[in-house]
């Protein structure tokens, strides 16, 4: 019993030692292909697998599941993305406009001003649900993933381009328009 296990242990140890020494000498070269889209990616994986990150990056698709980006000119401020978000990381405030503001690049009519369009990347779980529901496809995931900061507030990305003054002006416009409408209703 003891002899049998001893011999077996010795043989398996030798087998393992040969395996590791093959890898030790195999480390003279690194794997040849980093991009999974390559034709023979899986046949070129021998050798060191390390990717020395800041100096060397793995190729990723242009629209991968990384940080969000909003093309604010195409946004109709429908709030669907904020409603779809499971972690509530999107914060939108809309201001109604008395008349049509313009059209997005796909022809949808814009009737709301985005007073605030903040995405908290610290909360975001990169599920991509917001990009799915967006009717104008203005919110997309990008290939940017290496944002680091010393202040948490820097991770709240603001996409609204409206200044405080402009927000104030648009609000006043809307209140004025509503007041006019009320006044028009009261008139017989």
């Amino acid at each position, binding site marked *: 019993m*003891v002899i049998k296990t*001893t011999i077996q242990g010795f043989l398996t*140890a030798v087998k*393992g*030692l040969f*395996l*590791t*020494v093959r*890898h*030790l000498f*195999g*480390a003279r070269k690194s794997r040849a292909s980093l991009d999974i889209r390559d034709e023979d990616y899986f046949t070129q994986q021998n*050798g*060191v*697998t*390390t990717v*020395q990150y800041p100096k060397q990056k793995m190729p990723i698709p242009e629209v991968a599941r990384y940080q969000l980006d909003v093309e604010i000119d195409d946004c109709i401020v429908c709030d669907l993305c904020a409603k779809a978000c499971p972690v509530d990381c999107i914060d939108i405030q809309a201001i109604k406009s008395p008349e049509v503001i313009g059209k997005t690049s796909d022809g949808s009519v814009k009737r709301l001003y985005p007073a605030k369009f903040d995405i908290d990347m610290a909360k975001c779980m990169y599920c991509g649900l917001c990009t799915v529901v967006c009717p104008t496809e203005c919110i997309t995931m990008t290939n940017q993933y290496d944002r680091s900061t010393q202040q948490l507030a820097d991770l709240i990305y603001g996409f609204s381009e409206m200044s405080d003054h402009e927000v104030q002006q648009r609000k006043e416009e809307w209140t004025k328009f509503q007041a006019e409408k009320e006044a028009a209703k009261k008139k017989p």
Partner: protein
Amino acid sequence: MADLIVHIVVPIAIFTFIAAFTLFAVYAERKIAGFVQDRLGPMETGKYGLVQTIADILKLLQKEFITPSAADKILFSIAPVVIFGAVFVGFSVIPWAPDFIPANTHTGLFFIMAVVSIDAIGILMAGWGSNNKYALLGSVRAIAQMVSYEIPVGLSLIAAVMITQTLNLNDIAYLQGINSPENIYFMGFWDVTHIGGIFAWHIFQAPHLLVVYVIFFIASLAECNRAPFDIPEAESELIGGFHTEYGGIKFAFLFLAEYAMMFLVAILGVVLFLGAWNTPLPNIGSLRLADWTTGLGWGITWTILKSFTIVGIQMWIRWTLPRFRADQLMTLCWKVLIPLAFVCLAISGLWRIMVML
């Protein structure tokens, strides 16, 4: 006066060598670990991470002395000194080249076995003094392991000493090369006294000595708490074992002791079994390779080269084999290595009587 200077210079030289070796070995270990696991190892500090270990030691030297408030302050602070001292003293009887030996004593081998055993006490002091259950568990395991494995180490050394008939490490080294005072027989039948080289090494002087060397090597791995016998440290179970609470320069000394111990057992195996400072190249007819490659410089080169090879094998084993369970460790020692060592001991006796005379 000259004597006194020699007595001061030699330990400093050995310490410098140990420190340099540790810096190199830690780097080598991390690189080997990396390559075995298809990684690169340290790459950032200097070209190919070459100054990584120097940066590490500078960091350790700057650190604060922290003693846990519940620790036994005296034991805690002298344990690293005892552990390192025990290993350091062991180097005093190691021959590096023909007659190039700090202390040429007739009981060199016995002396090494005696002082290196003190290491176990140091580890118990460290574990007990830390007053931490993981440290204590680690040191309890270390004691059980080191005391058990002292026996196969001792038996395998006796098996070799029965062939050499001397405990003087310098004389043992002489008996394995072309300058041997006695006739050397390869496997007991071929006179290689004037051929020398690899054939004259102890492991080839008798067939069972090869087995004895394997026993010695395995047991010495356990003696210096290296993987796969690193249950005293067992990072995954015991945090760091007996050195959990140590930091800064005290930890540096524990680390130094660990690598010094690795080198000590490697060089001891080389001296006893692998020809010490004798060249592996034999004399072939008029091609006097062995004669040409024997001498002070060559001796040091061969000793260091052989020892580094053994240290390399220790690292290779560390990054291959998983850790033994405590009971498997004891089974291996008491049921496999010790009986085998006893058999080899008996064969050594018979070999001395029947073949060598």
